[in-house]
């Protein structure tokens, strides 16, 4: 997903993608991030307890926690409500 996204949209994308364990490279590729900002975002989410770190041999995998699901649900609700609150555009 490219384009101008807010920080919270990027967090949402990372957390949704990490519903099953994912490697760092897969996350930054999927969420279209560079490794520096990707590292910052992932560290923040780990620190806040939204992502947990799993070891699979040499690989480090990230997986969304239960708290992440709360955030995902809240975010989805807020964004879908945009279509209920504001009268739509139609031809």
């Amino acid at each position, binding site marked *: 997903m490219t384009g101008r996204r*807010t920080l919270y949209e990027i967090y949402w994308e990372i957390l949704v993608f990490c519903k099953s364990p994912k490697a760092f490279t897969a996350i930054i590729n999927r969420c279209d991030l560079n490794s520096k900002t990707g590292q910052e975002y992932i560290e923040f989410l780990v620190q806040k307890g939204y992502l947990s770190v799993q070891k699979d041999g040499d690989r480090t995998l990230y997986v969304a926690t239960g*708290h992440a699901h709360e955030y995902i649900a809240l*975010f989805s609700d*807020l*964004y879908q409500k*945009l*279509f*209920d609150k504001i009268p*739509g555009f*139609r031809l």
Partner: protein
Amino acid sequence: MKENTLRQFKAEFTSFFVIVLLNMAFGALVMAFGMQFIVSSVLGLTGEQPFMVIRILMAAISMVCFGLGLTWVLTSAKVLKRITRIRREYRNRKEPVSDEILTGWIVRTMSHYRENKKIISWMTRISSIGGCIFLVFGIFNVFQGFSTWTPGDITTLILPIIAGAINMAIGLVSLRITLYFRRYSVVWDRRLDEVSRSEQLLVSTMEKSYP
């Protein structure tokens, strides 16, 4: 709630897609007319001196129209490119749409709007300028028809009036497109404002730590 949201999202998306497509078609028309005028102006350059100056001036204006049309088409194509990807995804989807998929489409459409906000406003302006030019051409055609009309010869009147009607129709549709673009921008600007307001809730959620 989700079904309604999905229905509204699809309806809005399709409407926007049609407008951008129409806009592109009008850009192509401006380009074609510009090219046609360039050719007819150059072909008429063999005339007398004062007439030649007018022809050169007309060719220059036609080149500007051609350039405007080309920019119009390219800009519309740029906007169209990304929305086509999202549209293809939801059209090809056979399985039920989950909350996350729908939210993902909304986020992508929003980031598309943020990225193309300036282009859309520029397209609105170009579309209204183009519409006005076509309207003026149409009025000029009708005026020309009446001024050159010789009583008894109906074709000298009918042909410019038909040309005028075509130009005026294109102009009016183009102005209508401008109106739709404005409406689309108003709706999405309000949504962006709403997102900024809602972000406070996301910030406070994120502030919580769950070690």
